[in-house]
């Protein structure tokens, strides 16, 4: 086939696509054409585009164009003669990876329709955790040209013995919503899967194109590099004129005093109701699931007209309930849905008129994402209505608007060196035809996550899956992967293969218990620790209803509908995100500006004036500390504006260093703006002495001394053990034989600490605590910054507006050298007092 002929066919295909666009009153956008051009040139890349901008067709158009041209050149294989069951095997050419199963259904429908409209003889299938056996069987018979799937299902497919044949003809992988996977272990798992697919392609003499689709991030270059792997090169294509986003606040009509603390925001209900009444449909975002339940409850009380048009959506609700809500949103049957991040991404809801955010979104990227969930008319800005819940949140919202205008968007840093994910992937590879260690190492090092994986970590990972651990003889009869005759590492036990496939993935639920109606029907799942505190007959709020616990049996809580006030609202782990550095920075700038123009800032002025009168409002180059001696004790407040995670470590550090000056027991509390250390009496400090307490010298040692890192690591180990295949998740509905294999990860942690303290996964747990949970880098940066800032240690006569919310957090985080047993006794005494 000549180049000229090929070009002609391609041009014809392009014309076909253009007329498809024109038929709908559109024209292909510049960025779409650009992506198609890069695709034709065989390049890989990243499409930077917001939801609803045509990103799907930008990514999908490339392979469709190529296929149309190929079909025109060689029409014979088009709709080949029916063989068995009507369809003959065909090679899988394009893989579309999406982070959400719910999204997979919509994407699948869209891209299949597009291919069909253009007369392309492609069969597009979908494979997710929801797929039935029929669809999986069609896939196994090789009936798909393109496949929509999730990272977990892709990993699962790689665990089948014929994985290399299945993917041998693969030409491209498209990763949708890549920003959502970046920075998580799911992303790392996908990086490894992509490296495997590149390996298969290279072995077959081909090359794989990789395209990612991402929303706005501070580090798009990093996102591209991570997607393509260590050896990959690619381009970034920006969608022109990304839709402007307008951030507005829902402010109380009167200038009545705004609350100083609190984050539920229910005091703003009247304004929110007015906003809801003004449009046909609203998405109301909250930051936590408990907050969503409470807002839904508050709205239900006044939503007497058409109660069926109000709904609740969060990640703990049953899939069927969530789908019902999503459908209701799509067809416009619902007027208001209270949601958490479970609706942050995914399906476009064309019929949503308005997005409301309760409280601060804590980050600009997240706010952008949420703003984009409403209906957008071309050329119009998307709007998000923020509802501040307390005084400082007024400043936060104004700061978010400023940061957005200046393009200061958060980065999402990809994870590196997670041994647990590597161990899981290697067992997957051992199942999927087996692997030769040197080749698997080369493949792993071709990812961003493991590009500098050391030889000793690699050896430890292999030991982990081959002999259990590093200590020879300590793991009798352990078997997971074994060496075959040709030296390849394989899995030769059906049982181990089955267990591994059941636990592929990195999403770890925290001891979940299913919630079901007595008369049948699932409502969702709740953390076991919450239910353990309830007795039969107790009422609680869940899924937007007041429920009464009837009994708990076989990892399922049976409930019935109840009337009256619920006793408790479940709280889920890992609720609140810390304030991002970008937002915190903008906030500090806003604070000291005179002559405020922003409406939020005007409303915040009385509070800021009082702060100024009592103490000081710190400029970005200043660090404010306040010492208040009150009847309930002496308090030292510090306001680094570094987010709650970093403050947590900082507060513990400060308490520890204070205790070295004057041995005593201190407590601390934190929020996103600052921290307080309190005690019956605090040592006298001047600014210089406080500066010394905030030094970076011996930071790691003092942190280790100040926090019970071992206990934190033990908690972290849960997820690691699960990902690495050391424990199996006890899920509702799992078989008895599966439950026989449950070992608690804390027991495992203790046994390993005792018998193999240098275990590679224990080390990983310690590192993840330090760098993830405590945000060590940000903590260190905060201390370094404080050394450059001018430190103002003031003694206000009473609690300032900045101090009050911290003080109100109450006496928390008792820090003392008391041992574990005393603590347990004290907890028991407190039980007594509460009885």
């Amino acid at each position: 086939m000549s180049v000229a002929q090929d070009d002609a066919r391609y041009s014809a295909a392009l014309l076909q696509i253009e007329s498809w666009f024109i038929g709908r009153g559109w024209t292909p956008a510049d960025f779409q054409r650009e992506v198609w051009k890069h695709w034709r040139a065989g390049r890989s890349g990243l499409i930077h585009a917001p939801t609803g901008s045509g990103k799907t067709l930008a990514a999908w158009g490339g392979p469709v164009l190529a296929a149309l041209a190929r079909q025109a050149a060689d029409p014979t294989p088009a709709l080949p003669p029916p063989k068995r069951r009507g369809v003959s095997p065909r090679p899988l050419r394009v893989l579309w990876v999406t982070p959400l199963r719910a999204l997979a259904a919509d994407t699948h429908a869209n891209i299949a329709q597009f291919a069909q409209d253009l007369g392309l003889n492609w069969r597009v299938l979908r494979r997710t955790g929801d797929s039935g056996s029929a669809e999986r069987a069609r896939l196994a018979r090789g009936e798909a040209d393109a496949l929509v799937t999730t990272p977990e299902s892709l990993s699962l497919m790689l665990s089948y013995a014929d994985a290399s044949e299945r993917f041998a003809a693969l030409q491209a992988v498209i990763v949708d919503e890549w920003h959502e996977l970046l920075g998580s272990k799911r992303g790392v798992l996908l990086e490894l899967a992509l490296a495997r697919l590149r390996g298969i392609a290279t072995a077959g003499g081909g090359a794989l194109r990789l395209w990612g689709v991402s929303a706005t991030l501070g580090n798009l270059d990093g996102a591209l590099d991570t997607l393509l792997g260590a050896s990959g090169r690619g381009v970034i294509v920006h969608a022109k004129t990304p839709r402007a986003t307008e951030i507005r606040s829902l402010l109380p009509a009167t200038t009545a005093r705004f609350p100083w603390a609190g984050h539920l925001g229910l005091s703003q209900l009247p304004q929110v109701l007015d906003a809801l009444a003004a449009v046909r449909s609203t998405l109301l975002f909250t930051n936590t699931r408990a907050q969503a339940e409470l807002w839904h409850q508050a709205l239900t009380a006044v939503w007497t007209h058409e109660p069926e048009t109000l709904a609740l959506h969060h990640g703990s609700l049953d899939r069927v309930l969530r789908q019902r809500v999503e459908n209701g949103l799509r067809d416009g049957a619902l007027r208001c849905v209270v949601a958490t991040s479970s609706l942050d991404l995914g399906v476009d809801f064309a019929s949503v008129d308005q997005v409301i955010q309760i409280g601060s979104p804590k980050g600009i990227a997240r706010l952008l994402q949420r703003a984009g969930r409403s209906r957008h008319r071309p050329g119009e800005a998307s709007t998000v209505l923020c509802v501040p819940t307390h005084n400082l949140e007024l400043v936060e919202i104004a700061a978010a608007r400023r940061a957005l205008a200046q393009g200061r968007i958060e980065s999402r840093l990809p994870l590196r060196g997670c041994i647990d994910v590597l161990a899981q992937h290697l067992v997957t590879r051992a199942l999927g035809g087996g692997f030769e260690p040197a080749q698997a190492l080369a493949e792993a090092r071709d990812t961003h996550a493991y590009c500098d994986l050391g030889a000793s970590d690699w050896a430890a990972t292999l030991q982990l899956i081959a002999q259990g651990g590093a200590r020879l003889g300590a793991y009798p009869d352990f078997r997971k992967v074994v060496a075959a005759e040709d030296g390849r590492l394989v899995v030769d036990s059906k049982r181990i293969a089955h267990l591994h496939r059941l636990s592929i993935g990195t999403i770890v639920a925290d001891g979940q218990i299913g919630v079901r109606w007595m008369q049948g029907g699932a409502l969702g799942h709740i953390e076991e620790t919450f239910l353990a505190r309830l007795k039969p007959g107790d009422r609680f709020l869940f899924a937007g209803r007041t429920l009464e616990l009837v009994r708990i049996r076989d990892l399922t809580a049976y409930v019935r509908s109840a009337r009256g006030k619920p006793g408790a609202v479940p709280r889920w782990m890992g609720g609140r995100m810390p304030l991002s550095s970008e937002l915190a920075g903008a906030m500090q700038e806003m604070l000291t500006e005179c002559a405020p123009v922003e409406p939020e800032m005007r409303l915040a002025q009385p509070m800021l004036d009082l702060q100024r009168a009592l103490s000081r409002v710190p400029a970005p180059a200043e660090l404010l500390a306040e010492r208040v001696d009150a009847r309930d004790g002496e308090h030292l407040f510090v306001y680094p504006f570094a987010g709650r995670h970093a403050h947590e470590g900082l507060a513990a550090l400060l308490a520890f260093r204070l205790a070295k000056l004057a041995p005593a027991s201190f407590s601390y509390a934190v929020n996103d703006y600052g921290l307080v250390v309190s005690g019956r009496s605090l040592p006298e400090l001047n600014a210089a002495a406080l500066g010394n307490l905030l030094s970076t010298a011996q930071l790691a040692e003092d942190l280790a001394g100040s926090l019970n890192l071992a206990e934190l690591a033990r908690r972290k180990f849960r997820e690691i053990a699960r990902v690495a295949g050391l424990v199996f998740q006890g899920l509702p509905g799992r078989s008895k034989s599966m439950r026989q294999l449950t070992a608690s990860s804390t027991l495992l942690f203790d046994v390993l600490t005792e018998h193999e303290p240098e275990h590679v996964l224990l080390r990983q747990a310690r590192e993840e605590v330090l760098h993830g949970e405590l945000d060590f880098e940000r903590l260190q940066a905060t201390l370094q910054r404080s050394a450059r800032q001018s430190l103002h240690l003031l003694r206000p006569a009473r609690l300032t507006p900045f101090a009050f919310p911290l003080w109100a957090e109450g006496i928390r985080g008792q820090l003392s050298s008391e041992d574990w047993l005393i603590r347990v006794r004290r907890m028991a005494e407190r039980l007594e007092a509460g009885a």
Partner: protein
Amino acid sequence: MSETLAVDVAGERVLLDAARAVYWPARGVLLIADAHFGKAQLLRESGIALPEADTGGDLARLDDLIARHRPQQLLVLGDLVHGRTSANAQWIAAFAQWRGRHTSLHCSVVRGNHDRHLDAGGLGFESIAASQFEPPFVFAHEPHPDPRGYVLAGHIHPGVVLRERHAPKARLPVFWLRDASAVLPAFGRLTGLWPVAPGPGDRVIAVARDRLIRLPAGARQPA
């Protein structure tokens, strides 16, 4: 040395031992429940990397209990073993050695749901089919009420979760003493916990390492 606590149960004085056992002095009977021997072995055979650590520790704890109370009889209230493991597994050799050191001790086991494949005779144990009545007690695996007497049982691995703001949770096994039955904590180290919701009038005694802590009856745990 682990702490013991004398309590009255169904009119009898028994000793709760923080080594997760009950001793009944009047009859010289040492009771444990849910030992789950061989669990680590079973897990390893299924591809879960767990060092061989539990058997030795659990047997040493039994040795201590025997030295402390000098019982004539050891009665296991079900789930002596975790499941079927290969006959030449390491834990079986260690167990046989332990049995050899206590030849004069009469050992029996009330079969539990995990003991389906238990070769009691092979381990030097007498096997009791369902439950055994020794007034005033009924020894059983599952704590169902029994008209004959007060039930001493295991099976549910009772525990509590104690929490405090800003501090990691403490999960502790407990003795759960109720009106008609008492449930022992699981003896085996590699066993899980089931958080129980004690009713008013229940006595709950938690095991914190080698100490025993009485918990208030019917207390609601603070959120």
